[in-house]
């Protein structure tokens, strides 16, 4: 009994759907773009986080470029050696294996070590704090600890602990997206090693000033420089640094470091490298 109301509605909408369907069919045939199936296959292998570590804006563009050029030197630092071999088999070439790198924090000035100069109440962002004064800590090279870098990490590998950024080495892929996010350049990339030594301090202040500001600061005392049998430690502008290529991981520098909290850190990377490959 309602037929006179719904029949015209069904008929008009149905015919409209039919016409539009025909147009869609026509357009999809007419403007069909042939997509290389290899690209989508390669894209599926990639991590898919679009972190930009390979210098391409997205994983898809990396895949397109790789399929087009078949350049074995192109690497995805995030995927590491495992991904390189997978990509190699998929494309039938031998891919270069990227050096496993990781992010390190060149500062140990957490709230227990570093002394505060003033309380900061403004916008909770490192860049905003950096323009008001040289950080909340007395040391003007220290990690501010407001965590502007965390937003740049696609792998949830960073967190703030006790006023200092901490990197989860299991999760860090070494993409390097966090490096420019730090106003004081506290973050750096280092190649993974079985046993790696580095100076976890960025302070270029004179020794006395560094010691006043922080318990874990490098005072440029020269002791480790004299002790190192390989001459792998150099001091530049009141800050020691270890040349990783020369370092043989003998560990003598750590024994002589006189700072209250050792400013030289020892890290064993091999376990984490292995466990990542296994998973």
């Amino acid at each position, binding site marked *: 009994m309602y037929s006179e109301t719904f029949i015209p509605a069904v008929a008009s909408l149905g015919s409209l759907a039919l016409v539009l369907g025909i147009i869609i069919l026509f357009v999809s045939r007419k403007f069909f773009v042939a997509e290389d199936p290899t690209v989508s296959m390669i894209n599926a292998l990639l991590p898919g986080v679009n972190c930009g570590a390979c210098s391409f804006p997205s994983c898809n563009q990396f895949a397109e470029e790789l399929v087009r050029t078949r350049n074995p030197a192109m690497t995805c630092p995030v995927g590491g050696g495992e991904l390189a071999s997978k990509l190699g088999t998929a494309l039938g070439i031998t891919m270069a294996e990227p050096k496993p790198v990781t992010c390190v924090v060149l500062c140990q000035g957490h709230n227990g070590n570093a002394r505060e*100069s*003033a309380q900061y*109440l*403004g*916008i909770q*962002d490192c*860049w*905003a704090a950096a*323009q*008001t*004064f*040289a950080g*909340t800590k007395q040391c*003007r090279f220290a990690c501010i600890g407001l965590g502007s870098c965390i937003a740049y990490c696609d792998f949830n590998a960073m967190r703030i602990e006790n006023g200092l950024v901490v990197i989860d080495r299991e999760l860090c892929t070494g993409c390097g997206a966090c490096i420019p996010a730090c106003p004081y350049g506290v973050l750096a990339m280092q190649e993974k090693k079985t046993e790696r030594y580095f100076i976890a301090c960025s302070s270029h*202040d*004179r020794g006395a000033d560094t010691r006043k500001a922080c318990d874990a600061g490098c005072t440029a005392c020269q002791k480790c420089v004299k002790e190192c049998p390989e001459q792998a430690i150099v001091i530049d502008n009141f800050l020691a640094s270890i040349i990783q290529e020369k370092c043989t991981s003998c560990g003598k520098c750590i024994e002589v470091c006189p700072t209250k909290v050792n400013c030289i850190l020892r890290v064993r990377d091999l376990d984490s490298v292995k466990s990542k490959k296994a998973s």
Partner: protein
Amino acid sequence: MKTFKTGGIHPPEQKLTSGKAVEVMPLPPELAVSMSQHLGKPAKPVVKVGDEVGKGQLIGTADGFISANVHAPTSGKIRAVKPHPHPGGQYSMTVFITPDGLDKWQEGLNTPEIDWKTLSKEEILRRITDAGVVGMGGAGFPSGVKLSPPKDKTIDTVILNGAECEPFLTADHRVMVEEPEAIVKGLEIITHLFQGKARAVIGIESNKPDAVAALKKHAEPKGIEIVTLETKYPQGAEKQLIDAITGRTVNEGELPFDKGCLVHNIGTAVAIFDAVCRNRPLIDRVVTVSGMEIRSARNIRVLVGTKFSEIAAFCGSMTEKTNQVITGGPMMGKAQFSLDVPVTKTTSGILFINNIGLEKSGEKTCIRCSRCISACPQNLQPWLLANTAQLRDFESIELYGMSNCTECGSCSYVCPSKRELVHWIRFAKTLAGKRKQRQSA
């Protein structure tokens, strides 16, 4: 009474020290003279550790076009040259001088007053540049550069800024009351540099009637106008002062000389007079030490390089309740992170404040009340700029007129949601600048 057209606020004046004569602070045990006391490139130190310097001797030379000389504020020995906290919020190269107590001028400086009319224009400009005179209102733009505008611009109005619109500050006020002759002579020197045809005006806010009276007595016989301005913040901002006195608007990207104007601070006029007529470099200034938490608030004449901690001790020390020390006024001044910072040529005031309960720490969301828009003297929409800065959208923020913001703080003052509007805009300015650098690199 004259005033600028749009926006403005009227915070409590709090001029606690307006009736107190300027006292001279005794020589401190050590002076930390910063090499970066002006806008532009820091000066290059020309002394070594162990050198003996005379009062007024050059210790830092201007490095580049926009830079200024720095002189030893007293005679003594150089103890160190190293980075030291700066009231601007960073570390800067600083020369430490241990005074020998003799306070002996270097020969040829601080001579008896001569008539400036006997000097040529080039000689006047050279003396101003050599003496390291910079704008003493706060920005510290080198005066020698400001006084030599491009050849194709004609200056028809020279304005002396005696508005002193910031609450608490009375340094310019006291100088106007105590040294009106020097101010008038300084202004005459400036107008002389522009063929003497320029109209000379001194703008003073209506809350300083004694300064108006003192200056009127000396200025009017010389044909200098005294304009009384409404007491309103930010009356003393360059663009607002030009608007109030001449009715001209300085648009985005323009400088005052594009509109035929030149604005100098009261203190700068005195420094120019000292430099030209007495060959005396800029080594001291009048500073207002005020705020609720200093035991004896006063105006003092201090040497450049005196540490804030010594000034606090001279003024009867601060109370235990002090939790913020600000250099400059409460609206545009900067909170300090250390009391070791020294006075520079641009330190107009030091305020000791207890702001418990007034902190801006609890930012709440914008309720679209539009008070910031009514308060903005630059016709901007501060809430929009801050929101865009929060989104890190540094392309759009340029279109919304970020570079027009003078950071006067009127918007943050009126915001009922306690939003850090000015801080967000400053944050955006820094990061947008970094972004441009990276793009061009």
